[in-house]
């Protein structure tokens, strides 16, 4: 199974993601620079966190015009699992692959802290190993992480089961405490917190198992693990 890690100018969580995919979960991962094409035989795509283009204009908006995004869109249509983490989530939203928008946190601060996520949808390729309402201790690290969608979009998200994660508490002013959403088909998932920083016990002071299930879900979806 081949996983593509897309790298933009200013990505800075790509190596952490690559390390987790290869060293922790023993997957065949490859970096793909944003102005190149994705190979046709890829099985999953991850857009890691960082500050693509220095967050200029708006976090994620410039990277959303990178040539590789056309390939990501094609793969999304084919049903291939795609995960966007933090800036990757912002890029997926700005490219129209996911609904809503990410605004500056209510505090106006860059927030770097541990949060609790609640699993709201356990049918996606990244959440199929969870039970509904499972709790995931996981760090956030963002300045523009407040998820916003208008009332009609929020109703639709709820109706189509597109809310994947909520924060356990009010963290940054996100609409309905939303921390992650998926597309209507469920194969494209975006989340603000960083699972790649939480799957190893050495750097997770609380519990690394729940975050590991995000990657194990992908392994199960791909038929690598039962």
């Amino acid at each position, binding site marked *: 199974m081949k996983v593509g890690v897309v790298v933009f100018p200013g990505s800075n969580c790509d190596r952490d993601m690559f390390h987790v995919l290869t060293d922790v979960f023993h997957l065949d991962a490859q970096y793909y620079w944003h102005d190149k094409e994705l190979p046709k035989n890829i099985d999953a795509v991850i857009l890691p966190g960082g500050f693509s283009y220095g967050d200029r204009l708006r976090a994620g908006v410039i990277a959303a015009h990178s040539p590789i995004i056309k390939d990501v869109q094609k793969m999304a249509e084919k049903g291939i699992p795609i995960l966007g983490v933090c800036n990757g989530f912002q890029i997926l939203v700005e490219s129209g692959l996911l609904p809503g928008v990410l605004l500056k946190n209510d*505090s106006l601060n860059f927030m770097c802290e541990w949060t609790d996520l609640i699993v709201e949808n356990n049918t996606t390729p990244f959440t199929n190993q969870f039970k509904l309402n499972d709790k995931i201790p996981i760090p956030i690290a963002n300045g523009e992480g407040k998820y916003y969608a208008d009332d009609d979009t929020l109703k639709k998200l709820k109706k189509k089961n597109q809310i994947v994660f909520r924060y356990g508490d009010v963290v940054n002013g996100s609409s309905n405490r939303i921390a992650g959403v998926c597309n209507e088909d469920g194969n494209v998932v975006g989340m603000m917190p960083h699972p790649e920083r939480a799957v190893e016990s050495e750097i997770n002071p609380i519990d690394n198992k729940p975050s590991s299930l995000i990657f194990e879900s992908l392994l199960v979806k791909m038929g690598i693990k039962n």
Partner: protein
Amino acid sequence: MASFNVHVTIENKPGISDPEGETILNDLVLRDIHKTVSKIKTAKMLKFTIKEKDKKTAQSKVQKICDEVRIYNPMVSKITIDVFDA
């Protein structure tokens, strides 16, 4: 063809919170003696210089660019376009 300066102001739509503007109002302006100020909204301005045949074309061209490349996110933001002779 003439040269025009086109100013695009991007601001939050009504109903979308603007914590930066509120902080500037409450913690800076109203802290002093300027009690007549009731609202401050932050915005971002982009200044284009463009060559087009007239002001109207310059305005519509910049509007088209802003829509096409998502200079603003229409779910939360709106733009105002002002055109000046360069």
